């Protein structure tokens, strides 16, 4: 506007008319109200995290008023939590031994070998595994993996429930998590690096293993860590298939209760609100929440690093 009025001869543009109102200055109460409502909804997600901590902390304080710290972080005794941590560790390690090679292999195929059309069909197929409810996986571990695979085919001496069967099925469930995030990381590696490698005479396998994979390493690590978080937090498979015995052992063929398994089994029974066993539920829950929180934060930091590089 100013250019027109200053360069042209004659009366300035818009002379004789009242000045145009600046619409941005107009008060719009509805706009502010809506903005506030949306903002409150967004902050609710923070409130949920704070809520989790507050929901857990009261019973946890009550719990430690009755049970000494040393009895909780002990390897034996009625309130010992370390056998549960050991059980979680065992099933998680078995799960990762299954999920990391298979998930990474699937990711490398999808990102380095599959054509675009093949990828569009294959990727949702892998992700279907994540859609199966965990109670169904637990039932599968009990009705197929333990009796047919472990006892008949591999002729292992295992009971009806055992950590091995739970860990294996848990691994299958974690495959899509590892595959999906690794695939993102591998795809994010710039095409020029592959071209450079191939121009130097490397074949596809060498390019994938020695150039693309190292370049995507922090993203792949994030995928593994997130898979670990899934395995630690998964409940139904281990509740059904890993047994109800607090057992600190290095033998995966034995029954081992995990932290999540303990929460589900104890919560399923009769526990009066405020009783020690009810409070113990929350103490184990708090430990589980903090453990997965640490794992998740590591994973988020790793993802951020691989996003920044390219």
């Amino acid at each position, binding site marked *: 506007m100013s250019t027109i009025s200053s360069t042209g001869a004659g009366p300035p543009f818009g002379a004789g008319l009242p000045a145009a109102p600046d619409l941005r200055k107009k008060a719009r109460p509805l706009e502010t109200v809506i903005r506030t409502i949306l903002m409150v909804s*967004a902050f609710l997600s*923070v409130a949920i995290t704070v809520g989790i901590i507050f929901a857990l902390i009261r019973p946890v304080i009550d719990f430690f008023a009755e049970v000494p710290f040393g009895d909780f972080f002990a390897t034996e005794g009625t309130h010992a939590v370390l056998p549960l941590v050991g059980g979680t560790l065992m099933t998680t390690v078995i799960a990762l031994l299954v999920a990391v090679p298979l998930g990474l292999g699937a990711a490398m195929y999808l990102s380095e070998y599959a054509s675009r059309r093949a990828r569009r069909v294959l990727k949702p197929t892998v992700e279907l595994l994540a859609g199966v409810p965990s*109670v169904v996986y637990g039932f599968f571990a009990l009705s197929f993996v333990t009796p047919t695979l472990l006892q008949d085919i591999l002729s292992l001496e295992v009971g009806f429930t055992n950590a091995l069967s739970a860990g294996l099925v848990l691994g299958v469930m974690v495959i899509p998590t590892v595959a999906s995030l690794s695939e993102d990381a591998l795809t994010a590696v710039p095409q020029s690096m592959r071209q450079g490698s191939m121009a130097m005479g490397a074949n596809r396998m060498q390019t994938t293993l020695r150039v693309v994979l190292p370049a995507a390493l922090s993203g792949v690590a994030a995928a593994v860590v997130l898979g670990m978080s899934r395995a630690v937090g998964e409940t*139904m498979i281990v509740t059904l298939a890993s047994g109800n015995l607090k057992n600190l052992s290095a033998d995966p063929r034995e029954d081992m209760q995990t932290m999540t398994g303990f929460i*589900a089994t104890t919560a399923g029974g009769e526990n009066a609100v405020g009783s020690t066993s009810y409070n113990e539920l929350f103490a184990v829950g708090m430990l589980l929440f903090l453990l997965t929180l640490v794992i998740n934060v590591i994973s988020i930091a790793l993802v951020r690093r691989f996003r920044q590089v390219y």
Partner: protein
Amino acid sequence: MSVATSTAREVTRTVSTGRSKDKSLGSLVFLGALWFSLFFGVMVLLVLIVDTAIEGSPRFDSALITEYGSRVRPESTGFRAGILGSLWLMVFTALFAVPLGIAAALYLEEFADGDRWWNRLIELNLQNLAAVPAIVYGLLAVAVMALMGFGRSGIVLGGAIALALLILPVIIITTREAVRSVPQEIRQGSLALGATVWQTTWRQTLPSAVPGIATGTILGLSRAIGEAAPLIVVGLAGSVRFDPTGVMSEITALPMMIYSLTSNSQEEFRTAASAAIIVLLIMILGLNALAIYIRNKFQKTW
């Protein structure tokens, strides 16, 4: 054609088509291993479905979905209460989680200034919440219900709160992606014509993002419907013998019934649980198919 050009062409062709002329033994073994890892999951899924279907086949009858659970007549025990309970839970979970999730996503995408520390905090927090174990949401729901004066009573409200908390991060994240994929030009056009930010969001951005939001929401609900862990913690029963009548009505859910039958040693109950798993898988596959249909039919490519 120089060597450089022909090599570049060759590399571009292999990279884009996925075909390679490399036939050395190591490469073929490697490729075979990749194929195996890709199809391992599919094989497990096939074995799971076939094995369960065979085990459950004697019970593919109408009693399976019309009868209530029965301890006395295990051969005709049914899952009516569980199926209805799961559907009720799904509706109320959606009622709680969808409006909240969409509102939060719209704020983060359309209104928030991403450089402010509190908005970055929300961002980080959402990523973390998406990976919090489902069973912890059960404990939170118990605390929320206790605040409202209900305690652990296994009613529709408690279950729906637990599941809504569980899928809220998923809904927020997928809605944000859907909103973000709406081109900036549409917003600018609307703003240039004098619409306010909210008018632009409500009349232009949101309608364009509906297919993406619907897909994400349905996928979130399909996850909620199969979840049992938070429901155990909230105190849902493994079996009830009446239909739900309201938010305060005691219910069970299909995965809860499967869980309680799995620990039963009687053969008839295990057969019934297998058949119920097939019903649950059909419900979940149906929801997934619906989500894919919506995505393919209505998704705009800009």
